[in-house]
């Protein structure tokens, strides 16, 4: 037998994620608690009889996520439903064999709703046993372990491109401000459109708004004409990229694809996979978008947003988290502080 040390090769090292997800408060906060009365079962042999009987006499549908039994204790009723001194009487008059329980009841705090994350689960589990069905994807998201090192490098590359867009657009007098946006279609791994502020022309032309309109240009749409698009030379559509910026980016990022998948104008031939607004797209921004832009990205059905530096008027973490508003019909994921320091430097130029 070889005495050589076995080297573990199959376990990939957990990569440090250079950004943090901006999550809904309900995922970050502790599970809300509520108070219940519990009783103690005299003989552990009668546990199943007690459960059966109580489920019939005193079901608690609002606390279905809780186990009825904790060792030899049993969950009786929510404190808001029955006073402590009425429990005995209630059980007895409803035909429960009261001799199965000790007569003194105890008030305990338990999870009011089912925990959503493992962290939340582990906390409330200590109070009273609880059902938990972990959502694998959500766990990765909340523990910030969603991406492997290869994917992280891709995100970093696109963000460094957004930074270059910011600096070059200013040099070219396309913008007067320092912010850059890159819209990527991860399905074909290609840069679909670029964005920058044109608010010196129009106060609504924030970087995201410009980027969204530039995406529309790749789908035979668009409302703001600000450059002559590059004629198609391949099977990808370059209408979303300002030609002057495109030339520079192509040189600096020779291994990156540019252009959007071809858009079918004819509705009859439309495939489900054809581009529709910004569906499925990732967007990389040097600055956190404002409330208007955050909502514009909801309307546009973006899939993921990565941004560098927070903004005072930001709508994705600073003033509010527009992307997690429950009532909206679309939600995207947000990650912040990607290349934050470099993005900050851009803003100081």
């Amino acid at each position, binding site marked *: 037998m070889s005495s050589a040390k076995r080297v573990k090769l199959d376990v990939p090292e957990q990569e440090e994620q250079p950004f943090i997800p901006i999550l809904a408060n309900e995922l970050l906060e502790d599970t809300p608690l509520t108070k219940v009365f519990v009783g103690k079962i005299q003989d552990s042999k009668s546990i199943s009889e007690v459960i059966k009987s109580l489920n019939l006499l005193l079901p608690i549908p609002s606390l279905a996520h809780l186990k009825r039994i904790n060792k030899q204790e049993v969950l009786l009723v929510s404190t808001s439903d029955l006073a402590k001194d009425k429990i005995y009487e209630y059980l007895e008059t409803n035909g429960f064999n009261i001799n199965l329980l000790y007569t003194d009841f105890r008030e305990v705090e338990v999870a009011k709703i089912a925990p959503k994350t493992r962290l939340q689960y582990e906390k409330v589990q200590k109070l009273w046993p609880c059902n938990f069905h972990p959502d694998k994807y959500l766990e990765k998201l909340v523990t910030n372990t969603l991406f492997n090192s290869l994917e992280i490098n891709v995100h970093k590359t696109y963000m460094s491109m957004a930074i270059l867009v910011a600096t070059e657009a200013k040099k070219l007098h396309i913008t007067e401000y320092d912010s850059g946006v890159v819209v990527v279609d991860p399905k074909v791994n290609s840069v679909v459109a670029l964005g920058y502020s044109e608010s010196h022309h*129009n*106060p*609504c032309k924030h970087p995201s*708004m410009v980027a*969204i*309109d530039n*995406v*529309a240009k790749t*789908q*035979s*749409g*668009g*409302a703001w004409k600000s450059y002559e698009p590059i004629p198609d030379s391949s099977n990808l559509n370059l209408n979303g990229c300002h030609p002057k910026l495109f030339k520079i980016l192509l040189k600096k990022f020779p291994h990156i694809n540019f252009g959007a998948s071809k858009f079918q104008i004819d509705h009859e031939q439309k495939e489900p996979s054809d581009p529709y*607004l*910004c569906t499925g797209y990732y967007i990389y921004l040097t600055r956190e978008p*404002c*409330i*208007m*832009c955050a*909502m*514009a990205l*909801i*309307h*546009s*059905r973006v899939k993921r947003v990565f941004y560098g530096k927070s903004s005072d*008027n930001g*709508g994705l973490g600073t*003033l*509010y988290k*527009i992307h997690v*508003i429950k*009532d*909206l*019909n679309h939600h995207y994921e947000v990650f912040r502080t990607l290349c934050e320091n470099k993005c900050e430097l851009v803003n100081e130029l």
Partner: protein
Amino acid sequence: MSNDANSDISAVITLADHEQYFMEKAFFYARQALDKQEVPVGCIFVYENNILAVGRNEVNKTKNATRHAEMICIDEILKHCKENDLDFKKMISFVDVYVTVEPCIMCAAALFNLNIRSITFGCRNDRFGGSTVYDVSKVIKPTTVVKGGYRACEAMELLKDFYKGQNPNAPLPKVRIKKS
């Protein structure tokens, strides 16, 4: 009564004659949007009692989901100011907006940031509303006065007609208008 003097959007409101006239115009453009298979929202920007811009949703036409009636009107005013060498920032702060549906979160933020003088709308926007779904005024502290509830049922009916035609399986937008 709402304790916020700046906004009263829960009541059914009655408007002065000239305001009713502007809302009628807004409805005209909402119906036009429906004819063009766009979400039926119509909007009018008024400056010193003159209609300076009209707009309706153009999302499908432009393939740009942000081309709402309000955004189109903002662009119109901007064009008007450029052509006539007028101060846009100053002018827009005296503009009164008449729109058939409560502005969405995006448009509310845009209008508040421009210090629009007032917004008068028809029905609430239960899907995206800038006060119904998320109250933008909490974070952008606007000077804009907002009131809504004029011909709300009619505005909502237009939306229902659109969503019915759009996708027979799509759920109808919830009607949530307080009765007086």
